[in-house]
């Protein structure tokens, strides 16, 4: 199992005048590590600011671009 901390892109709009990227955290099984992505199987992804789940229904795989990743750590 790994925990990936990463920064997601953010939509800017009249109701969300965003000024910073969204800090995310994905925990799951490291499925694949390529030049462009880390792929996580059985991922649980949360937005750090409100601890909300993204997406609401748990997906089977999450593709996190290498350029968004801040940190990867092994968790038990």
């Amino acid at each position, binding site marked *: 199992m790994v925990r990936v901390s990463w920064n997601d*892109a953010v939509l800017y709009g009249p109701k969300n005048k965003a000024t910073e990227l969204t800090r995310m955290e994905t925990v799951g099984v490291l499925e694949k590590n390529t030049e462009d992505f880390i792929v996580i199987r059985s991922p649980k992804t949360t937005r750090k600011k409100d601890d909300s789940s993204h997406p609401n229904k748990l997906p*089977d*795989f999450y593709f996190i671009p290498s350029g*968004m990743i801040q940190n990867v750590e092994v968790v038990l």
Partner: protein
Amino acid sequence: MSHQAAVTVVVTLNQTQKPILVLRGAKFEKLGMMREMTRQKRVDTVFRQIVTALTTAASSGQETLPGVLKWTPNLCYSIDIMVSRDIVMITWQDAAFSFEKSLPATFPEPRKTFGVIAHEAEDYIFIATNLYQSSQINDVVPVDGMLIPRDAIKEVKKMSELS
């Protein structure tokens, strides 16, 4: 007790020129010089001045400075300065997820987002995809757009360079 409302920071180009921005607590006043600087695209200079002024306030022992400092990133949107007028195409890699039970054979393709670069921060580029002309400031301001992490960006290309 908060002293934030009493904090005033004056931003000037240099000591001999008129103030371009006055911060009074949570409010700010935009002065004439700001528009001229916007035309000259000297945006970075403006923000350096803001940071310098706030840092100076910090060194003078303002207890509320952290509360003031957090206004800095907001200000760059409140004043709605546009960095460039060029329409660009940003090619970037977005995150994605899949509900397929087995690993998909193909991975997500990079996205292409078209718009105008409204602001460049250390860790992202803000591309405005919908703008309007404000008669109040006689300039265009972003309505919708996207903050894209810099390291996820593969290419930024002006539309005029596309064949």
